[in-house]
């Protein structure tokens, strides 16, 4: 396989989009709390972030105190926040909303996959996209090539394999003909896996993080971000990476449940930003979740499924230090259905300008997000 040519990729303008999905529906009103809105404290007598404890952002919002590691990015204008973000799907179902959000509407395959397919030159290569996960997320479903990996070091056949074995295995998959579409998919999956194997052999995985950054090696999320940073810094042509931080479904004793997650989210992202240094200028991190949670807390110190949530856009030249997209307030008559923060910023309007920044031509956006009238937010 001709890997030498593709391994020489080292364009300085290589852009990478990292999608962090907070699975389980993260409570946007805790991540980015409208601490100056009296209704907020009325709806959340026990769960509201206290005004004097929040990390102040502007006249209305404060970050949860455990997100303080992100304060520097905010102050340096590298972090933009969008509130009331979400999908038009009203099912309030994790699976339905994640599915809808990852597919980019009722479309085949994922939006990130369609971005990779329509917006990038065909030479994207097998390391065009990785998911730091056991399985590919739906947003990458249908990508030209995308590998689910848990650590770069694991990505090798290992010692003790007979010399001819890999080539014969590669040949068997390349010749796979039976079983119709499954055979074709297996052939493609194997080709991507082999190409990835060849390329990853070139990375020095022992290299320490740059700029004094320090990841919590005990934390799977931080470890994943470190792997993504390695791939970005090695300039192997990585266009997109996906990583999940799950467990936000806080119906019950919300604080106990999500405080460790807030800590991990903030520490991981802060280390990643420091590690990449100047490369953050060409790297965007989008943090999203399937929906927010009900404004009023429930009897079990938790919150039920709601609609609007919060999104973050970090790095990549974003004009940050701003909460974008407006804030109509939490007056009871403005709430949606059983009392939810409405969705006034469709998530596609946040993603579209980011994808444009990452090379999607304007006419490709309609293919990435079909059947939707885009009104991209002014992120840049």
């Amino acid at each position: 396989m001709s890997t030498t040519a593709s391994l020489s990729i080292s364009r300085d303008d290589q852009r990478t989009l990292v999608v962090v999905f907070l699975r389980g529906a993260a409570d946007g009103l805790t991540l980015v709390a409208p601490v100056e809105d009296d209704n907020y404290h009325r709806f959340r007598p026990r769960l509201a972030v206290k005004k004097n404890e929040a990390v102040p952002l502007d006249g209305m919002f404060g970050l949860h105190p455990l997100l303080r590691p992100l304060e520097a990015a905010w102050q340096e204008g590298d972090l933009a926040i969008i509130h009331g973000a979400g999908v038009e799907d009203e099912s309030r179902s994790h699976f339905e909303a994640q599915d809808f959000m990852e597919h980019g509407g009722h479309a085949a395959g994922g939006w990130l996959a369609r971005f990779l397919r329509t917006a990038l030159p065909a030479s994207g290569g097998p390391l065009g996209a990785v998911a730091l996960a056991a399985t590919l997320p739906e947003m990458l479903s249908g990508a030209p090539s995308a590998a689910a990996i848990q650590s770069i070091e694991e990505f090798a056949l290992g010692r003790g394999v007979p010399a001819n074995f890999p080539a014969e295995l590669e040949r068997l998959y390349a010749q796979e003909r039976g079983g119709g579409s499954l055979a074709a998919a297996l052939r493609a999956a194997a080709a991507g896996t082999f190409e990835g194997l060849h390329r990853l052999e070139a990375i020095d995985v022992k290299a320490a993080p740059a700029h004094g950054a320090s990841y919590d090696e005990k934390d799977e999320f931080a470890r994943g971000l470190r792997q993504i940073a390695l791939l970005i810094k090695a300039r192997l042509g990585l266009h997109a990476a996906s990583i999940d931080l799950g467990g936000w479904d806080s119906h019950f004793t919300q604080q106990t449940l999500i405080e460790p997650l807030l800590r991990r989210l903030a520490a991981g992202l802060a280390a990643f930003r420091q590690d990449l240094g100047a490369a953050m200028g060409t790297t965007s991190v989008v943090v999203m979740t399937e929906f927010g949670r009900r404004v009023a807390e429930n009897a079990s110190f938790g919150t039920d499924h709601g609609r609007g949530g919060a999104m973050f856009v970090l790095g990549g030249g974003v004009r940050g230090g701003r909460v974008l997209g407006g804030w109509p307030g939490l007056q009871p008559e403005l709430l949606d259905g059983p009392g939810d923060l409405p969705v006034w910023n469709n998530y596609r309007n946040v993603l579209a300008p980011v994808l444009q920044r990452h090379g999607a031509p304007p006419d490709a956006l309609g293919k990435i997000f079909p059947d939707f009238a885009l009104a991209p937010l002014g992120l840049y």
Partner: protein
Amino acid sequence: MSTTSRREFLITGAASVALSAAIFKSVQGWLGEARQYVGRGLRRPLSGPLTPPPAGELDPVAHALNRLTFGPGPGDYARVAALGVDAFLEEQLAPEKIADGLCDRATARFAEAWWEPLGEAYEEDDEALTPVLRRVALLRATYSQRQLFEVMCEFWSDHFNIDPGKGDCRYNKIADDRDTIRAHALGDFRAMLRASALSPAMLWYLDGRANVQRTPEEKPNENYARELMELHTLGVHGGYAQQDVMEVARCLTGWTILAKKDDGFSGDLLSPLKDRGKVVFRPEAHDDGAKRVLGQDIPAGGGAGDLDRVIEIVAVHPSTAHFIATKLCARFIADDAPAVAVAAVAQSFSASGGDIKATLRTLFGTPQFRGAAGAKLKRPFHFVVSALRATNAEVADERPLLSYLDKMGHTPFRYPTPDGYPQEASHWFGTLLWRWKFAIALAGNRITGTRIAREKLARALGGESALLATVLNRQPAGGESDACKKSGDGLALLLASPAFQCC
């Protein structure tokens, strides 16, 4: 499994918890030592006809073995070919009549963990129970002769998925496995649904225990009510609305679990150790007003009976028949379940009142099933178990195998969200590398605690080519034989090959 209480067995009278725990630790230690003896002989004896499949493609016998089981072992093809596919299906639909000595021996060292009564599980080290559950799942799938039953246990474990990592599920998922999944896997869907609704693990996992209405201001916890309709019965497009979710939640208020300490939801119903985990109904936490669920009125004053009304309404709903049929067809026929087969299976489900055996009989009789040979991707658990079965592997320690499954993202009972592991092939293509690594390690006897007797097996089967045909469940194609010779390890190559990933 034994129904003798371990407590009754070990101690009588009022012994202290500390003493009981100490005794238990020593029993555990003894079981640990015993392990070195029970691994031996965990191989199927290679007696009887072992003739491998003669055809170059998957014939109906091979197809049935691929789909109704976790993959054939040496001799299975010959046995089912002699028995006939229909008789094999009937045999598998009556698991209670199938002797299962090998599996019993393989799991004997964990028999203690299937607690009776449940409360005693709470004495256990909470780190120990879930791994036992996972290890036993792997052993049963590998060694049980009741293969279709085990396949269905896996199916329902996904359908009624519970992540034992949440709260007390680490103690009581094991009871859910016994009383919900295994008790009804080939039985009556309505009974399984009711068992699940009242399973302590489910009440924990989907917050049913915290679904209370003690004052008019309190809002019910909707978590279980929603998943009951979305995932367990009607399906997300099954015709329910947000209002139905809220009404079902109201119907189910008041069901909770006896606790050690009151954390606000069990009321003052504290319990002695043996009753811990017991499910009870608290009338004072139940919203006893009138409700309307899916167009049907449930009058006020129903109390605990509201739950039965809800189960009745959702279990026999036409959307439920369609949803369950679709999932079964996706599991056994094709990811994209063929509509004709779904209709037939749904019809059978409805007509039989949710009889799982009758439903499966219809499914396996459809032309769509018969025409689907080789077109499904094995999920990683199926892949690993089928490799162990094909090579007649002897497993003395399941943990290294489970760690491979971790890498492939398919460890039993480790799926975090209530929708269960995905069925579609597209979710699993990223696991190829780990499948290959597993194949290489298994064939090379480099997995700690798992041994295959490769030469002996090949000899018993009648040579290397018979071994390859047994593994593939058909005769290898020219290209496959050729690649096997050149690769330096033909067995590893076939286990890693595209054909072995499919069923």
